[in-house]
């Protein structure tokens, strides 16, 4: 499982091909949320999606996760047509998704438990992740006993403990205060930079490939945010969606800032500010449009 040998070929980790998605409104009419979205995310890329509220960002991620079938168009994961759930992806939902009846530790260990990992090991690994998100003191708490930001951090640990090639994230940091947020962003970039253990294993079986590509492998991230600054600070490419209905891609902009990035300082550099100006000009128009509709 995980990423598999596909990642070694020149093949997008995720490919949306003219994807549309319709909903039926309560009034019985058809509402087209996203229209004709074609987007290829290269393996190892960090792509951020921005757009006005309600334009269809979550819908797009749901389609990529295999939770919503597209009304038309196709989804390919590592070159293979997606049928059912996307087993190569983790998905951090915009809403609270922790199980309220499990402790923080059991929530984080859940992915391992489901995969049949022994309790002692899954707990040890969960504790290590909880330390990484700064929640060691809360392992025995229930989600209802945590603040909203803490719950988000638990969700992160819950997702990151299972190692999959593609990470779908829906506004994961919007509920956090500025400082926690910056810390979690750095943590995300660090995680993304790491080579996966699984991939190293795959490479064992193919020495030629190991020499060529394995060390450069990164996880692939599709990151939804309403915060343009965050999008630029983290991503290799920023995709701007238009205001709904029938939201389309209105701009794709590469972010060429050097890595590793220092998130504390980045936002004041001229390169960053220039990028921000260029993208904001596009996004602003869509935000204004969406507000006019509402």
């Amino acid at each position, binding site marked *: 499982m995980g990423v598999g040998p596909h990642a070694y070929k020149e093949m997008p980790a995720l490919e949306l091909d003219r994807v549309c998605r319709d909903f039926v409104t309560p009034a019985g009419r058809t509402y087209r949320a996203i229209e004709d979205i074609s987007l290829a995310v290269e393996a190892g890329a960090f792509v951020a999606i921005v757009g006005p509220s309600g334009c269809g960002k979550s819908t797009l991620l749901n389609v990529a*996760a295999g*939770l919503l079938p597209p009304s038309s168009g196709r989804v390919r994961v590592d070159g293979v047509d997606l049928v059912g*759930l996307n*087993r190569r*992806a*983790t*998905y951090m*939902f915009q*809403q*609270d*998704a922790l*199980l*309220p*009846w*499990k*402790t923080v530790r059991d929530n984080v260990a*859940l*992915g391992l438990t*489901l*995969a049949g990992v022994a309790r002692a090991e899954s707990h040890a690994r969960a504790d290590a992740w909880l330390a990484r998100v700064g929640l060691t003191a809360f392992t025995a708490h*229930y*989600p*209802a*006993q945590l603040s909203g930001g803490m719950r988000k951090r638990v969700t992160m640990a*819950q*997702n990151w403990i*299972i190692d999959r090639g593609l990470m779908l994230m829906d506004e994961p940091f919007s509920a956090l205060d500025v400082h926690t947020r910056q810390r979690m962003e750095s943590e995300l970039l660090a995680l993304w930079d790491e080579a996966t253990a699984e991939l190293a294993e795959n490479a064992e079986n193919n020495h030629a490939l190991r020499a060529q590509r394995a060390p450069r492998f990164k996880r692939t991230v599709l990151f939804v945010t309403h915060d343009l600054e965050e999008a630029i600070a983290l991503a290799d490419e920023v995709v701007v969606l238009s205001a709904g209905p029938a939201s389309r891609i209105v701009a794709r902009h590469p972010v060429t800032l050097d890595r590793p990035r220092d998130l504390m300082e980045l936002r004041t550099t001229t390169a960053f500010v220039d990028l921000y100006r260029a993208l904001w000009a596009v996004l602003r128009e869509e935000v204004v449009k969406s507000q006019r509709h509402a």
Partner: protein
Amino acid sequence: MRKNGEKSEVGSLKSADRSDFRLQASRFRRASVVAWQILVGVVALALWQGLVSLKLLDPFFVSRPSDIARRIATWIASGTLWPHLIVTLEESLLGLVVGAALGIALGFVFARSPMVARVFDPYIKMLNAIPRVVLAPLFLLWFGLGIWSKVALAVTLVFFVMFFSTYQGVRDASQVLIDNVRMLGATERQLVRHVLVPSALTWIFSSLHTSLGFAMVGAVVGEYLGSTRGLGYVISQAEGTFDTTGVFAGMTILGVVVVIVSAAVTRLERWLLRWKRDER
């Protein structure tokens, strides 16, 4: 440095004080509730006793608390109460377990397969509408005078409560939780175990008190209508001889047993739903 340390110590003392105070306050509140409960009971009994003593009520029709207490004491002392009580408890418990098992299982099936739910919906409603007293003679005919006719009656009452609350609980499970657990790799069975069952448990437990009361009603009504043992039998025997004291004594024992068992269920529920305690 030292100053800081002192400061935080004072701070923690203060908060400890406050939580201590809160604990005391809640303990005080609980004690005052119990005091009021006792007071209400004592006043009601005294009023009853007084009205009978003043000849405003006829003891032939309503007996009197002192007689009822004496009767219960005799039953306990002579040991005649226990066999009846044990039979009633046995029937109630069996009815509760069987009814809950059937109700929960079927509730799950219905919630997970909309087609089944739609097809059987009118039949479930029809069955639920049958007055149970009508069924009792039938059950006597089918299952005999022993405990099983009473268990069957209890089952028909418990089943529907459990069925509807399980159905509701499973249907009520949050879609985001389901999606999240599926993305984390859950199979259909794991989804049931980690999301649907715990979600339904909240509903199932909140209906456990009702089910328990129903189980006892089923057992006692069954005994009342035809048996040779149990509290229902005791009450019907007393009624047959116009022994109102015996009837009230039987009802009192029934009431006390329900209160005690209910308290135990509350304990169990609080432990099983402990993750909910701090939710507002």
